[in-house]
């Protein structure tokens, strides 16, 4: 007899293991192709064989979306203030400091202003590598401020989301960032300024349920996980496996919640076209 018995029979094991080759090579999570890192970079971190989009951070997006040397970062040094003096198995303060050291980022977002094919835009891009791209006070405040910049300068706004949701360690403060950013977007919209929301893998929880879903145009990278509740929670709720492709970009497109799916290689071009259409000048 088995020692452990699965309590819910319709549920299959959590995840498959991936073994990454050392050093200069990366393995495609989708097709298993082994790719040299240099080749990956040239290909904008997509698998040359199957077009699988590797998860990348804000620096990488900035590097290929903005015209050369046009991007200026704002509020670079802002850090979390640990308002609750939160402690789980670790102190939040320690977790933050360790993550800053490890990732070289100060929090899960970079904001700034730059030019996309010559068109000025306010910009924010999240980083999953910083505590799961979670939204706490810093993410909320930096987004609010960059929306203010867009509002004051009357320029469009582009946000690339990549987040597991709101950051638990800041409790209700994290929750209120959803309110703060949405309220700013309302003012931005009232001023007839465009907002383009780009969803990447993954965009879930409080981020999806606030600014990520409030774009005038919402676009997504292929096969990105996008949803409110995480798939694990839903699986537990309904007690069976989820259908293939559930909560992926293609599923959202089918259900009418995003405008189109964009291959990373065409992201800059599509953004610049959209900015052109919405430009009032």
């Amino acid at each position: 007899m088995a020692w452990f018995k699965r309590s819910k029979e319709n549920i299959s094991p959590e995840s498959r293991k991936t073994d990454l080759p050392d050093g200069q090579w990366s393995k495609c999570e989708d097709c298993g192709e082994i790719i040299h890192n240099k080749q990956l970079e040239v290909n904008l971190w997509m698998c040359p064989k199957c077009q699988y989009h590797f998860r990348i951070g804000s620096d990488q997006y900035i590097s290929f979306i903005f015209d050369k040397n046009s991007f200026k970062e704002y509020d670079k040094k802002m850090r979390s203030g640990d308002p609750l003096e939160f402690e789980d198995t670790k102190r939040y303060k320690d977790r933050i400091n360790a993550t800053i050291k490890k990732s070289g980022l100060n929090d899960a977002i970079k904001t700034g202003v730059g030019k996309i094919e010559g068109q000025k835009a306010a910009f924010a891009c999240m980083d999953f590598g910083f505590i799961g791209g979670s939204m706490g006070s810093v993410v909320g405040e930096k987004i609010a401020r960059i929306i203010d910049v867009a509002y004051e300068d009357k320029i469009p706004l582009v946000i690339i989301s990549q987040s597991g949701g709101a950051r638990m360690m800041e409790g209700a403060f994290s929750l209120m960032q959803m309110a703060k950013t949405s309220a700013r977007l309302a003012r931005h919209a009232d001023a007839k300024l465009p907002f383009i929301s780009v969803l990447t893998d993954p965009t879930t929880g409080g981020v999806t349920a606030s600014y990520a879903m409030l774009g005038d145009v919402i676009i997504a990278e292929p096969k990105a996980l996008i949803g409110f509740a995480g798939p694990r929670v839903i699986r537990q709720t309904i007690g069976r496996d989820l259908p293939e492709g559930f909560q992926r970009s293609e599923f959202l497109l089918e259900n009418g919640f995003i405008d189109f799916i964009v291959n990373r290689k065409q992201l800059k071009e599509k953004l610049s076209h959209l900015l052109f259409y919405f430009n009032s000048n």
Partner: protein
Amino acid sequence: MAKNVLDFEKPIVDLENKIDEMRKYEGHLDIADEIKVLEEKVNQLKYNIYENLTRWQKVQLARHPERPYTLDYIYMITENFIELHGDRLFKDDHAIVGGLAKIDYAKVMIIGHQKGRDTKSNLFRNFGMPNPEGYRKALRLMKLAEKFNIPVFTMLDTPGAYPGLEAEERGQAEAIAKNLLEMSRLKVPIIITIIGEGASGGALGIGIGDRVLMLQNTWYSVISPESCSSILWRSWDYKEQAAESLKLTAEDLLEQGIIDRIIPEPLGGAHKDHHLMADTLKKVLLEELNSLRKIKPEKLVQNRLEKFGKMGVYVD
């Protein structure tokens, strides 16, 4: 004997049972003095226990199955309530109720999460967990209120937005996000009251307003203590600690500047005296409404933007 006794209430109930027992013999024996002593003791005990609740104990009180729910308050504090149904897109969600009502001389649109009291009504109400159509109904009613310059009261009491398959298909996240945006620019006064559980985005989805009030024994946070425990401690057993860490009680949120006011509950919780609770709530709501009425709509919206804009702690 009272049902639904929480662990920490047991000493009170034991003593109360003892008093009841003694009362049976009161006619035969001269024990009036002894009963009196015990009654004083029980009052003292109640005071000690209920005034020194831990955060987890408050979470338990917030979920007490005998607490008044949105419709109970509506029936107790308003007249001529007309419930309005449906989001005009898909269906009527029973986990969020709403409609027009008269509270003293004020016309209001009242919207709130609705839980059930037994298995059957809980299934009907989906345990107070809305689907997207619930948030869309709420928004429809708020826009209707705005059109006719009627203030909006919302009552929050949910374990969360429903994490189901169809909810995702129909855009749970989009429905909540849209409400946040639209509520932040609605041109009528909005007063939010957390009457039970304020769980995350599912609560906030009808939770943006000019005043945010919390009943004394309720909680409001980004996640429930149980889910927080399971994610950060990788076990369901640390819910008490998670509740402490999350600082999710009315007192905590007032201190954090996230809510404006705590509404006192009867000793032992709102469920101990529904009418007393409703009277207090009504008084506070009317008071807050009167102060908001004086503010022009544009200013109201501007204040709301600034109010939520201030929330957050960071090092610049």
